[in-house]
């Protein structure tokens, strides 16, 4: 469902993403792991056609991100970092707006809103203005927005960042529950999250793909500890990069 072909993005002299290449299939929950500034978010911004790659391309849900950005966006759900949403709207009017932009109508839109509202357990706040909600609720509204059209591909940038342990647990449960029928990419720098939700993990550092495998495989390489392996690959790469 996602096929990334040597995608590269530069910001001035900094190479944020340096020729990353991978594929992800339906039923996979793929975790992007990496230190801050590793290029996780930039990669996601390119997959969601917010940024255009400098070179390379990717195919998402059968469409090329360069040639058919709007078709790609039609088929994916995206929660950007910090899940920005319009604070001045009520939850219901916000979801209706997203549905309008996605071309959903009448009864189908109403049903879709009902579905995501109960899925994300935001029933109690649908008529509240978004800026009055707690962080946990805001994040769930952000997630509801991304699920409204029941997309095949879901891209979540640090979906649990800044949430309390209970809220984290809830979001992870939701992701796990959807994992079998969709292709989900999540980014995180919390290693326990990989164990909790991902069926596959990729470690990214300095814009490059450093490791790729199931959480169990990666753990094995770190003699049973994902932390150790993570530190080993990312630090090793940093010193190498520093020397060059």
């Amino acid at each position: 469902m996602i096929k990334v072909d040597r995608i590269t993005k530069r910001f001035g002299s900094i190479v944020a993403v340096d020729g990353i290449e991978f594929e992800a299939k339906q039923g996979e929950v793929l975790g992007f792991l990496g230190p801050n500034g590793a290029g996780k978010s930039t990669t996601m911004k390119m997959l969601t056609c917010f940024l255009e790659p400098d070179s390379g391309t990717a195919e998402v849900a059968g469409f090329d991100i360069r040639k058919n950005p709007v078709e790609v966006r039609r088929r994916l759900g995206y929660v950007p970092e910090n899940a920005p949403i319009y604070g001045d709207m009520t939850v219901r009017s916000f979801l209706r707006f997203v549905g309008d932009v996605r071309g959903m109508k009448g009864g189908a839109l109403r049903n879709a809103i009902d579905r995501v509202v109960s899925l994300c357990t935001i029933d109690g706040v649908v008529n509240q203005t978004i800026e009055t909600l707690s962080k946990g609720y805001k994040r769930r509204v952000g997630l509801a927005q991304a699920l409204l059209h029941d997309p095949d591909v879901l891209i979540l940038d640090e979906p649990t960042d800044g949430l309390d342990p209970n809220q984290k647990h809830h979001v992870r449960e939701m992701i796990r529950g959807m994992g079998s029928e969709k292709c989900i990419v999540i980014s995180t720098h919390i290693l326990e999250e990989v164990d909790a939700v991902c069926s596959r993990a990729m470690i990214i550092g300095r814009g490059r793909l450093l490791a790729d495998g199931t959480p169990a495989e990666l753990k094995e390489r770190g003699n049973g500890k994902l932390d150790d392996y993570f530190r080993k690959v990312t630090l090793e790469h940093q010193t190498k990069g520093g020397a060059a």
Partner: protein
Amino acid sequence: MNAATAVFKRELKGYFGTPLAYVFLVIFLVATLFWTFAGGLGEAPFFDARNASLRTLFSKLPWMFAFLGPAAAMRMWAEERRAGTVELLLTLPVTIRQAVLGKFLAGWAFLGIALLLTMSMVLTTAYLGDPDPGPIFTGYFGAFLLAGAYLAIGGFFSALTKNQLIALLLGGVFCVLFVLAGSPSVVKFFDGMGLDWIGSILESLSFLTNYESMQLGMLEFRNVFAILAITIGFVWATTVMLNETKAR
């Protein structure tokens, strides 16, 4: 529903969801009508003029919209970028062009409503005398066109900065420059330097010059074209600018 229509609807509702828009609307109406009745810009006060026309109102509009246009536009992109919602909006199935157009048309509709609210003056004039409907129609039509041009300029500066206030100030300054461009002193200045051609280009772009004949009831293609060209130019520039600034 078309994506641009959805954006238009949300934005137009958004105007009436914030108290700030009402504040601007009231300031605009009070100042415009006060100015009309008190006189200014080389014209007698409305009653003293003893003339059943809206000239005293129309002559104030290019100045008042230089304030209301950028005020209606300041939030447009600056706020989206500050709050990060631009990433949400532009990863929905909407192109930058559709999003810019939707927002622009919503702002234009808002300014159209502001203009409608000055139409009490039409009733006043009709009660006091027998005004010629031609100049009233062309005057309002021209004012609506001008409002769009000011909004487009303001929208461009809103895409340039994350700070609404800076967007308002820069937009306002540029709008005033477009008003003043054709004023006699500016044109004379360039004539004096032997650069008549600069003077005449500025004059042909000036909002004052282009609006002048419409206030008198004349609708000329070149005037409409000049204002529309500036509008379309700035709306286009907004999409280009936004492509550069959206991710910063």
